């Protein structure tokens, strides 16, 4: 059977992300998102689309030559990923073809377009392929590329658009370089914290990292762990399908680092350091709370730095919501929200444009949340953690003024 293709995949189709997201804009209008601030704690762009711009910022001339000569193929390749479901989710393919105004800043225009469609005022932007950079066997590559990316991002995107912020990549395979990154970039415009990619095989509780955590705590900047999966991991190789490698891998790598963080007593050493755990959903958190509490009561002497139950430390951490587990389990979800103090600790995140992205409605439509709790999770919690000192976006303010003028005219 010759079925009609997906809208936009026809030859010469005119791609516009605002059209692709028209149903999101309808949701935003129907739910009154113009009345409050929405902050997206985790969104993405595909930095590989602008490798040539980023590689130009690489400081080591030989590594820059390597990057340019190989067009990025010097990076590690995943052993497989078919997250787009064999063409069933064409978003990535379509967005690459989106026509932008001539002379415009492509990354800024692309990002603002989807933000406005969803009703997002501020978005925290992260890379995509670089989420696996911590696996690269060459430490120099991680340092060089992350520094180039952070320079490019701060100069070409964050400096030009205040509605886009980021927590910058830390090259944790080189603790000294990670500390230098904090010191050098921490005061740049739009830098609201720093990020460790969770898929890596370094023990992040080792003494070499304490200076990094101390610097972040002193600066009052959050530290995020952004998860991903690694299908090449021996345990993940036991799953033969991407559904398994993804469903297990994202929580797994965050669970490992969170477990080590708590059991090594780092919450006691850095009590004011804000931690954010990103892109693993939230259903794993009650599991880990219960497991660690159970073990702690028996093995207290193994973790003498801890003065409280592991779950009590976890309840002071922040969690990004996506992909929120909303299928047929409202009761479990409500219990999870209660266990993690979601009203103050949960940060809504879209993960747009990735295949399992969430809209603000995943929070707004929950039946057990008060209006204030919804607004906290959708924006106020992130505004507080990121120390954002501005409010509604210009399009929202313009619509509100137009609405007020229309009311007055009546």
């Amino acid at each position, binding site marked *: *059977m010759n079925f*009609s293709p997906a809208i936009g*995949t026809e030859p010469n189709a005119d791609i516009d992300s605002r059209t692709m997201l028209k*149903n999101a804009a309808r949701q935003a209008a129907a739910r009154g998102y113009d009345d409050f601030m929405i902050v997206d704690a985790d969104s993405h762009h595909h930095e590989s689309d602008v490798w040539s711009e980023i590689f130009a910022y690489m400081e080591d001339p030989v590594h820059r030559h390597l990057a340019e000569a190989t067009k990025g193929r010097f990076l590690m390749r995943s052993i497989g990923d078919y997250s787009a479901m064999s063409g*069933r989710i064409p978003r990535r393919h379509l967005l690459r073809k989106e026509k932008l105004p001539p002379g415009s800043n492509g990354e800024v225009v692309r990002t603002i377009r989807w933000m406005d469609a969803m009703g997002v005022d501020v978005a925290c932007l992260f890379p995509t392929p670089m989420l696996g950079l911590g696996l690269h066997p060459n430490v120099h590559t991680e340092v060089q590329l992350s520094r180039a990316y952070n320079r490019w991002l701060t100069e070409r995107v964050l400096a030009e658009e205040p509605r886009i912020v980021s927590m910058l990549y830390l090259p944790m395979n080189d603790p000294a370089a990670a500390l230098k990154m904090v010191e050098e970039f921490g005061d740049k415009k739009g830098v609201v914290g720093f990020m460790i990619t969770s898929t890596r095989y370094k023990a992040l509780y080792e003494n070499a990292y304490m200076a990094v955590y101390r610097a972040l705590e002193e600066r009052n900047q959050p530290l995020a762990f952004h998860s991903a999966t690694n299908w090449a991991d021996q345990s993940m190789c036991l799953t033969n399908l991407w559904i398994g490698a993804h469903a297990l891998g994202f929580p797994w790598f965050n669970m490992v680092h969170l477990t080590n963080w708590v059991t090594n007593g780092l919450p006691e050493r850095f009590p004011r350091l804000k931690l954010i755990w990103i892109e693993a959903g939230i259903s794993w958190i009650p599991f880990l709370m219960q497991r660690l509490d159970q073990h702690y009561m028996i093995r207290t002497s193994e973790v003498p730095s801890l003065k409280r139950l592991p779950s009590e430390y976890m309840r002071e951490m922040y969690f990004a919501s996506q992909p929120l587990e909303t299928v047929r389990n409202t009761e479990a979800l409500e219990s999870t929200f209660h266990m993690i103090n979601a009203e103050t600790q949960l940060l809504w995140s879209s993960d747009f444009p990735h*295949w399992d*992205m969430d809209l603000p409605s995943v929070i707004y439509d929950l039946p057990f949340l008060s209006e204030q709790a919804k607004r906290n999770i959708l924006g106020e919690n992130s505004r507080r953690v990121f120390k954002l000192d501005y409010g509604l976006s210009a399009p929202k303010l313009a619509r509100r003024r137009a609405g007020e003028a229309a009311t007055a005219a009546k």
Partner: protein
Amino acid sequence: MNRIYVARSAEMREGERRLVDCDGFEIGVYRFDGRFFAYKNQCLHQGGPACEGITIARVVDVIGADSTFLGQRFDESDPHIVCPWHAWEYRLLTGECAGDGSLRLQRYDIEERDGSVYVIVP
């Protein structure tokens, strides 16, 4: 009740989908096996444009008599409408969600009159 014109019946080939506007939303109209089907362009998951994605045959595991996995095949008699936002799939013939049969896309009646196809919106 609104009767919305879709197309001349003969203009729509087998497997074709058309979108029609309906006062603030769209309806996807499909032709399959000589019949017409109409659904609201709104996914039951996060409200995505369910009728704007691909249509593709149901995937079926092929299991041998000895319970061994032999491969997979497409069942061309059971096409699925796939929402392009997150790939939630719906049976074109019924609107049932492939992953949860208790969920169904909102369906509309079709009227064929004088060689034209119309969607009936209550």
